[in-house]
C-alpha cells in the first residue's frame, strides 16, 4: 500500500469528489447511507453521506442539499460533471442504512435506514445509473472508503470486520 495517498473525508450530511489517485472515505455510518458514484475511465469517485431520505420533510430555512437523498445525488452528479466525468459511464455502490436500534413501536423516523436506501435507489433509477453492489441494512455501523484507482468499496464494521464490494 502506498501511504501518502490523498484522503478526502466526507462528514455527515456532506459530499465530495476525488480524482486521479486518492481515497475518499466517510466514517460511522449508522442509518445514514454512504453512496459512491464511480467513473472508471476518468478515475473519479464521488461520495455522499446521506442522512435523511427526502427533502420534503425539511423544516430548515436554508436547505442543506447534501443531507437528503433526493438532493444530494443530483448535486454529486454536478460535481462529477465539472471534473469531466461522463454520466453514462458512472456506476454506483452503497453501504449503510442500518437499523441501529429496534423498537416495537416503530414510527417512520425509526425506519430511517431502510428509507434512506430505498430513496437512494429511486434516485439512481431516475438518472439511469446502475447499482453494482450494496451492503445495506443490518444493525451495525460501517466506515467506508473507495480508492479512485480501483473503484472497490472497502467496508469496515466493528462486528463483521472488513468487507469489499
Amino acid at each position, binding site marked *: 500500500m502506498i501511504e501518502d495517498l490523498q484522503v478526502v473525508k466526507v462528514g455527515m450530511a456532506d459530499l465530495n469528489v476525488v480524482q486521479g489517485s486518492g481515497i475518499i472515505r466517510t466514517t*460511522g455510518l449508522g442509518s445514514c447511507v454512504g453512496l459512491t458514484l464511480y467513473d472508471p475511465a476518468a478515475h473519479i469517485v464521488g461520495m455522499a453521506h446521506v442522512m435523511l431520505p427526502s427533502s420534503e420533510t425539511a423544516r430548515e430555512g436554508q436547505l442543506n442539499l447534501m443531507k437528503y437523498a433526493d438532493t444530494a445525488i443530483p448535486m454529486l452528479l454536478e460535481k462529477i460533471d465539472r471534473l469531466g466525468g461522463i454520466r453514462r459511464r458512472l456506476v454506483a455502490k452503497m453501504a449503510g442504512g442500518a437499523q441501529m436500534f429496534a423498537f416495537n413501536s416503530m414510527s417512520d423516523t425509526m425506519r430511517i435506514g431502510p428509507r434512506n436506501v430505498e430513496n437512494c435507489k429511486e434516485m439512481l433509477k431516475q438518472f439511469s445509473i446502475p447499482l453494482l453492489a450494496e451492503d445495506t441494512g443490518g444493525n451495525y455501523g460501517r466506515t467506508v472508503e473507495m480508492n479512485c484507482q480501483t473503484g472497490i468499496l472497502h467496508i469496515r464494521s466493528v462486528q463483521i470486520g472488513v468487507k469489499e464490494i
Partner: protein
Amino acid sequence: MDIFRNLAEINLDVLKEVGNIGAGHAATALSRLVDKPIDMGVPAVRMLAFDEIADQVGGSEQVVIATFLRVEGDAPGNLFFIMKPHAAKRLLRYLAGLQVGSEDEYSEMELSALSEIGNILAGSYLSSLADFTGLFMTPTVPALAIDMAGAILSFGLLQFGQMGDGALLIDTTFLEGDEEVEGQFFLIPDPPSFAKIFRALGVPYE
C-alpha cells in the same frame, strides 16, 4: 437553528441544571451499584454540528457501549448513556462475581449486566428529570449497542436533521476518584421540547 442561537444565559443555566439533576441521581445509583464514590463533571450545554457530536466521545469511529432510550411524553427526546470499552470492563469488574474478558469480547452475562446498568442509570436520570420539571416523561425500553460512536449517535440526531445541521446537547460526565471518565450522559431533546422544558420551570423563553 436560529432559535438556539440567542438562548439567554438563564436558559442555558436551566438546561445545565436539567443535566445536573438527572445525572446526579444516576451517579448516586451507580455509586451504590459498584460501592465506590462516583463524581460528576459540570454539565455542558452546547450547540454542536453533527460531526462534532461524536468527537465528544473520541470520534466517529471510536467503539462505545451505548444505552439508548427514546423519551416520550410531554418533552420527547433521546437519551444516551455512553461508556468506552475499558470503562465498561472496569465497571463489570467492580460488580461482584463477574469474570471479565478482553475489551473486544462480551459474554452473554456481561452484556446482560451492562444492559441492566444502562437501564438503571437512564431510568433514574429520567425519573428525576420528570420530578424536577413536573413534565410527563416515559422511556421506551432501553436498547444496548456496542458500535462506532458516529453510527450510534446519529440515530439520536434525526429529529434535528430536518431542522438544521447541528443539535443541542446536554452532556454530563461521570468520573471515578482518579478522574477517569466512567461514562457520559447525552440528553438531546427534540427541538420543540425546549420551549416545554422552559415553560415547565417558569423560565422566560423567546
